[in-house]
């Protein structure tokens, strides 16, 4: 045997090599470790809520009202109070009232933009548009929030004559700016994954470009596109700074898009600073975080399943 093969077959001939391998392994599985640790921590702290708060309290609470002189079932979030009220109903309403319109807006434009980039745009146009999109994705959300708060809110109120100047719709407009680049990128990727043969076959049958896009490429990529929308929705649920600044943060139970809302994220951001560690309020905030995390986790899993389904279909 030559020296080199000897060298190659000898295992762990140098401790540094062993260390580097292990270090790479740790970096490789780091995301799994982090996610499980975050999951564990959130749920451990969140579950401590139930030491002193009943699960019903998370929906609403019977409170004696001295003004009406009777007990009232109050569905409200008022964490600093004689009798704290920790209903998460207004927070969940708020989160969905922002995330849903934001996803609809950014999907309409994002899917369109993705199709244009992947199917229609010339290489030169694409080279200009892609970096611009990345620029958009790079705008700090606090800047978008400030823009919404100072400028867009007035514009929206003048246009729709809303009661609240800061409302869920203004927040949704801001959040859609954040989810838009995500959806575009994922849609474009999904469309590019469609094999060229499919398009060629379509053209060979005499289809026009538009017919090929609409009848062949988009249907083939529909699961990838849905995954993009789901991921965008998850991102919209998690956005904090924009909604904190632009939605007014009133914890209302409502389905009105033009009402002021308080989202789960904004609520945690606004209140986490004040709480004493280990207090009831502290644990409830963790529980809200755990619920939010579960929601985005489920959304991500769903989109992963959808994407895998598409990959399998394309391989056939």
């Amino acid at each position, binding site marked *: 045997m030559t020296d080199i093969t000897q060298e190659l077959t000898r295992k762990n001939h140098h401790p540094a090599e062993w260390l580097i391998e292990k270090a790479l392994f740790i970096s490789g599985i780091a995301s799994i470790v982090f996610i499980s640790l975050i999951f564990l921590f959130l749920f451990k702290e969140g579950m401590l809520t139930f030491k002193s708060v009943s699960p019903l309290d998370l929906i609403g609470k019977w409170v004696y009202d001295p003004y009406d002189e009777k007990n009232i079932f109050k569905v409200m979030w008022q964490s*600093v109070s004689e009798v704290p009220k920790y209903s998460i109903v207004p927070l969940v309403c708020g989160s969905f009232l922002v995330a849903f319109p934001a996803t609809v807006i950014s999907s309409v434009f994002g899917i369109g933009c993705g199709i244009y980039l992947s199917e229609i745009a010339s290489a030169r146009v694409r080279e200009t548009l892609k970096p611009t999109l990345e620029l958009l994705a790079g705008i700090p959300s606090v800047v978008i929030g400030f823009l919404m708060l100072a400028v867009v809110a007035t514009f929206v109120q003048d246009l729709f004559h809303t009661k609240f100047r800061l409302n869920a719709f203004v927040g949704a407009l801001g959040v859609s700016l954040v989810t838009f680049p995500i959806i575009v990128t994922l849609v474009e990727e999904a469309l590019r994954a469609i094999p060229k043969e499919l398009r060629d076959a379509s053209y060979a049958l005499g289809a026009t470009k538009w017919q090929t896009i609409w009848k062949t490429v988009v249907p083939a990529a529909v699961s990838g596109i849905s995954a993009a929308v789901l991921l965008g929705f998850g991102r919209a649920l998690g956005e904090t700074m924009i909604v904190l600044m632009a939605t007014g943060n009133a914890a209302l139970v409502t389905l009105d898009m033009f009402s002021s809302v308080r989202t789960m994220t904004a609520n945690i951001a606004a209140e986490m*600073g004040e709480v004493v560690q280990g207090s009831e309020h502290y644990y409830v905030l963790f529980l809200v975080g755990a619920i939010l995390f579960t929601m985005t986790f489920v959304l991500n899993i769903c989109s992963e399943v959808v994407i895998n389904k598409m990959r399998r279909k394309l391989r056939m």
Partner: protein
Amino acid sequence: MKNLRNKILSLALIGIMCASPVAFAANNITVKGSDTIVILGQRWAELYMKNNPDVSIQVTGGGSGTGIAALINGTTDIANASRPIKEKEIQQAKSAGYYPAEFKVGMDSIAVVVNKDNPVQSLTMKQLMGIYTGRINNWKDVGGNNAEIIRYSRESNSGTYAFFKELVLKNQDFAADCQTVPGTSASVNAISKDANGIAYGGVAYFLNQPNLKILPIKKDDKSQAVSPLNVEGKADYEAAWSGHYPIARYLYMYTGFKPKGKIKEYLSWILSPEGQKIVEEVGYIPLKVK
């Protein structure tokens, strides 16, 4: 492997040192808490550090609740608060091994503001309670236009929130549609753009704002409306000292223990005429000289 263990040990040591800067730097004073006092606190700190170059003082805001929580968690030397410490917080502090000492360092009037175009001239304390608990929803019920009242409040970590809730709302809940804005300067911005809005906050923030109107407040139907401002448009000291203006409060500083050393010197300087002059300059009300 021994080498690695040493490295981990030294890393852990650095971690411990970073976690407890207070223990390692005696001339470093951290002050945290009320957003109402943060400007005042910074002015105090600047001037004090100029005269005492060996002391370094860091002042941050976050809200009275945040400051007191930080005191209990051991991450600040002094907590600023625009409300007295609660009994519950004293208990939490004691179980964490602290014995909070209280210092009244100034006074502040809470002003109620509306947009300059709002025709309402004054409100009673009862009307104010009705508005903020959600029982009065239209400006015409308090002598204004036929328009819905848009309520602006503060986040629950604000001392102004706690004080307002206790004194004006008599500890009832705020109406659910109270919008919360981060900080009093955000309320200024909101009210100047919202013709039907109402907000409250420390009077210093609302001085010289052309788009706002500071409302005089009546204790009850029979009494005179009192403005937190005097004829010159500055905060009215006598009205706050005498309790004539109904929504005035003390500003507090809390330390974890009975203060000594640099912290004690700093606090006595704040209470000295020199320190109290800065209270005036910033727009708050100095303590009454006995």
